[in-house]
């Protein structure tokens, strides 16, 4: 495998659905170990962008390079096995089985059974859902499911973590814990976070990319972004001041 500095690179990445261009010629670069926040209006193309990175969608045009490997058009599972983990916007979990089993299925991917068990338990702990371990995921509340899915992503120990609105439906405290969790994970992996919750963003964000109409609109440090007139225009609204307070 060729040597690389940018863990992720997309070139001219484009996704079209019939008439709709959801992602439009995106050149995106992420350094190894970087924590990036991805903001943007509803329908800007953030989730679609993620789907293109994970092969859930085959991009119409352009390329995706991960760890120097061009994996455009690969099958999802092959891509994922290179070390990408994603928490989707609408939780994707194994409803019929226990929380523990959900996480173990993830940790087992890389480790032999005993280590997998350990790792699973540790991850449940980190996400603060150990008390739910035996519960059937289908019977959990929305927020609880979000956490379960997060645990599954972390348990796979990916090199690149994609989080699509992880804080959605989380209360103040869970949100703070989540923020800590994200920062902590960012030490061992590159992370891209999509979120609309500015309070949360303020807690984790350094460098930020803003999407609009499927294209990259701004890339700058968080404070710059918050201060940016146009970004406030298309996205933040009054939140700008609140959040920067």
């Amino acid at each position, binding site marked *: 495998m060729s040597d690389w500095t940018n863990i992720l690179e997309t070139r001219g990445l484009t996704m079209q659905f019939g008439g709709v261009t959801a992602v439009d010629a995106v050149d995106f670069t992420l350094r190894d170990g970087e924590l990036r926040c991805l903001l943007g209006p*509803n329908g800007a193309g953030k989730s679609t962008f993620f789907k293109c990175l994970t092969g859930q969608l085959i991009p119409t045009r352009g390329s995706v390079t991960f760890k120097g490997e061009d994996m455009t058009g690969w099958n999802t599972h092959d891509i994922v096995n290179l070390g990408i983990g994603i928490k989707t916007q609408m939780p994707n979990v194994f409803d019929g089985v226990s929380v523990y089993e959900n996480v173990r299925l993830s940790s087992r991917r890389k480790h032999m059974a005993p280590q997998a068990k350990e790792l699973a338990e540790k991850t449940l702990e980190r996400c603060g859902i150990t008390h739910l371990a035996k519960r059937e995921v289908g019977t959990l509340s929305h927020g609880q499911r979000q956490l379960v899915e997060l645990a599954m992503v972390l348990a796979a120990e990916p090199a690149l973590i994609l989080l699509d609105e992880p804080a959605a439906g989380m209360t103040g405290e869970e949100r703070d814990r989540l923020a800590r969790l994200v920062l902590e994970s960012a030490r061992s992996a590159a992370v891209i976070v999509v979120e*609309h919750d500015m309070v949360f963003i303020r807690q984790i964000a350094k460098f930020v990319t803003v999407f609009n109409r499927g294209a990259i609109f701004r890339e700058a440090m968080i404070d710059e972004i918050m201060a940016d007139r146009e970004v406030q225009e298309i996205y933040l609204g*009054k939140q700008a001041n609140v959040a920067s307070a």
Partner: protein
Amino acid sequence: MSHLLEVSGLSAAYGLVPALHRVDFHADRGEVVGILGHNGMGKTTLMRAIMGYVKVTGGEIRFEGNSVLGQPVNARARAGIGLVPQGRQIFPNLSVEENLQVGIPGKAAVVAQTVEEMLELFPRLKRLLDRRGGALSGGEQQLLALARCLCRRPKLMLLDEPTEGIQPSIIDEISETLAALTQKVDITIVLVEQNLEFIAGLSKRVYAISNGVLEKEIPRAELTDSRSVSAFMGFTA
């Protein structure tokens, strides 16, 4: 005169697992009642119980003075209760337009006209009209869910985390829209939210729910600061 919605001693359970205990609260016309609570505390369950999805094991739910307990969901809906469920529940294979039309009672003309009004309230949906509901982005779906609910012109709206996944600027717009609605057509709202600011901006009274028990009312003064709120909500499970 009686309250529009009056919930008294309401208990509910999933099979044998209890989820609500003797919940009492009420909402008057044009009023917004907020409900806060940690994950898994019973907010959604409460909403679903009022709407009629969850089997109620005790207590009473009165709408406009008369009990709705016996009634099926659709009857409650027709009586004027509307729900914006957590997770949107968009009809994936209907177009956005169809999603809106389904719930609107009456003639084709009326339907078309109502849809128009909704597009006024939620301009974002205009260019999405003939897109598959399932194809929408999270936020777009959330907007659609709100619009779909309003299409029926409900007297009482149950909103389960309506701002989830919606971009900040639009949250503000929605906040204004809803406030306006409560003024103009004195629509009543029971609002479950995590976004303190949003809930503070709208609701007259705010309650905290913990392990299925509705705790004491939270003074609006406290709402601005999440720390003190969680104090009210009791400690995280």
